[in-house]
């Protein structure tokens, strides 16, 4: 079987309410969705979320890269078998985007689409390649940045829907008060972790974390910007709060350096950021083998496609501490699949058992929500 056509959709799906962290405010999903079709007519969908400050990709560079680099090198090539995740990863060529750290969102979108296509053709679910180890996945809530009163309101809402794991965006002057009030709103039972999105200096991280440690903080994510791992290792020794890496963990080289330096208690593995399902699983496995915990993270504004991929990954790992994503229409004005992937009460969501990624994407919604649609054929 060979790929004969692909379609790229640059989405613009408005959010129900804006989502912000210390450096960005988002009001809509800007994911890029890839649809591939093989010569037997089977289709598959994949998604990547380009983030200039994470992988160095933008929507424009991702579209260009997919259309000019990746697609010409896979069109009309014999597809890999549908029963081997690593074979799909090896089948995809290694590519680069000038000035970017890694074209991981592009690669993830393509890998997912090819996998989905091959599995759908075979009538098999992704779970056949990555057998689930649990029947349901439990998601965390994320309390966005913004005024403290809004953060507290969000925390109350999350408590009302029974979420047991909450992440709070920090990186502001009022961090200590913010964490204190949100903890109060959540009650003592919920696990609370913080995400600074690289907004702190070493000194500020020590100051805030020392002040809030008694509130029971399960982890702090990316306290300061991506940089030498020694800073993280030093912070890990200086504060009584476990350290999770996110922007510092993009490539396998990053993972090796972080593990060698003992710089993290948790890896935040995200499918789009880490270059696809196979590479994300490999990073998570390396972490677990080294005694480092794993969070399966998500992209703000991801659609059901990336959420489904994350769900499969989270279900298949031998151990997963926290899982994020699957907000569906809690965040998006409209999602793109027939099935809802949104989690329910207590953040719980069932594993997906349908063919491929386990969701049926409604192409009409992609077209309606896209600001750019590029049709690619094997002829170029």
């Amino acid at each position, binding site marked *: 079987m060979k790929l004969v056509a692909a379609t790229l959709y640059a989405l613009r799906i408005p959010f129900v*309410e804006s989502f912000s962290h210390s450096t960005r405010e988002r*009001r809509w999903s800007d994911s890029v969705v890839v649809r591939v079709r093989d010569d037997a007519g089977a289709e598959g969908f994949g998604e990547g979320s380009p983030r200039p400050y994470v992988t160095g990709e933008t929507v424009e560079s991702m579209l260009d890269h997919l259309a000019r680099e990746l697609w010409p090198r896979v069109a009309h090539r014999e597809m890999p078998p549908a029963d081997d995740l690593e074979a799909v990863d090896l089948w995809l060529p290694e590519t680069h985007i000038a000035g970017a750290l890694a074209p991981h969102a592009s690669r993830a979108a393509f890998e997912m689409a090819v996998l989905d296509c091959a599995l759908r053709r075979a009538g098999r679910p992704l779970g056949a390649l990555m057998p689930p180890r649990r029947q349901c996945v439990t998601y965390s809530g994320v309390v966005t940045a913004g005024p403290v009163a809004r953060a507290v*309101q969000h925390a109350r809402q999350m408590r*009302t829907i*029974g979420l047991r794991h909450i992440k709070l965006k920090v990186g502001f002057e009022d961090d200590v008060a913010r964490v204190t009030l949100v903890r109060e709103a959540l009650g003592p039972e919920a696990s609370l972790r913080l995400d600074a999105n690289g907004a702190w200096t070493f000194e500020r991280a020590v100051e805030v974390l020392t002040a809030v440690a008694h509130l029971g903080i399960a982890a702090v994510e990316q306290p300061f910007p991506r940089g030498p791992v020694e800073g993280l290792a030093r912070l890990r020794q200086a504060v009584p709060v476990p350290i999770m890496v996110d922007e510092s963990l993009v490539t396998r080289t990053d993972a090796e350096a972080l593990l060698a330096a003992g710089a993290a208690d948790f890896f935040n593995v995200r499918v789009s950021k880490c270059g696809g399902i196979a590479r994300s699983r490999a990073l998570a496995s390396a972490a677990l083998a080294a005694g480092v915990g794993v969070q399966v993270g998500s992209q703000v504004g991801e659609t059901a496609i990336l959420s489904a991929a994350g769900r499969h990954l989270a279900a298949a790992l031998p151990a997963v501490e926290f899982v994020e994503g699957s907000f569906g229409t809690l965040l998006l004005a409209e999602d793109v699949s027939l099935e809802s992937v*949104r989690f*329910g009460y207590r953040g719980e969501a069932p594993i997906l058992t349908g063919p491929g990624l386990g969701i049926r994407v409604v192409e009409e919604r992609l077209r*309606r929500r896209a600001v750019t649609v590029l049709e690619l054929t094997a002829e170029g």
Partner: protein
Amino acid sequence: MDNGHRTLRSTIESLFARQVESFTGSADFQALERGSAGPGQYDAFIESVTRAHLRSPQLLAFLYALAPPAAAADIQGNLLEELGLDGDSGQPHPDLLRGLLAAAGLGCRQGLLEAQADEDLRRVVVEPLLYGSLREVGLAALTEIVAFEYMLSRVSGRIARALAEHRGLPASALEWFTHHSEVDILHAEQGLTNLEAYVRYYELADDEALTIVEMTLRENVFTRRYFRDFVAAGAANGWR
């Protein structure tokens, strides 16, 4: 206790008022009312209104099943009215919407809209529940219904005028709107009372109830239902 409930009622009412203000102040609504929207936008609006309310009887029947004793008679009355069985309006409200479609020359879209309305309902049923019990689910559903009654009692006359003036629809086609502008003043008042009765009967704390109401209204429910496709277009305009 009474003070607490008065506060809850007025807080909810002010949330409704804010939603109505933001809905009628939106560029999309203004364009419809001023006649600057394109013909396709009027058609899309008519279709969205139809899709949003075609299955209202089913939703009211669900709420009737959950109604506390103090609100049961009101909700039963609303349900009978929706079904055209109250002896006054005579026609089931979904039929008024079908008539609106036909008069607007959109009769050929009815099948699709019926299917979409069915799918909307199916989705509500199969989607994982966000709340721990029917008590909270019912409050969220009741909040949305009462919010629409509140909005329609204040705005549906304006919508009817806009559709008559700028889309050329006759008064007979706009009966769904004119009917709601008259009866929903009463319904909206009753609705707020019923919300209070619901909260009291099912022993929800005020802050707990308010959190559910706020979650239900965290996006503009009117914009979401009536301008569902306009939202994407509006966002796209600002992108490049």
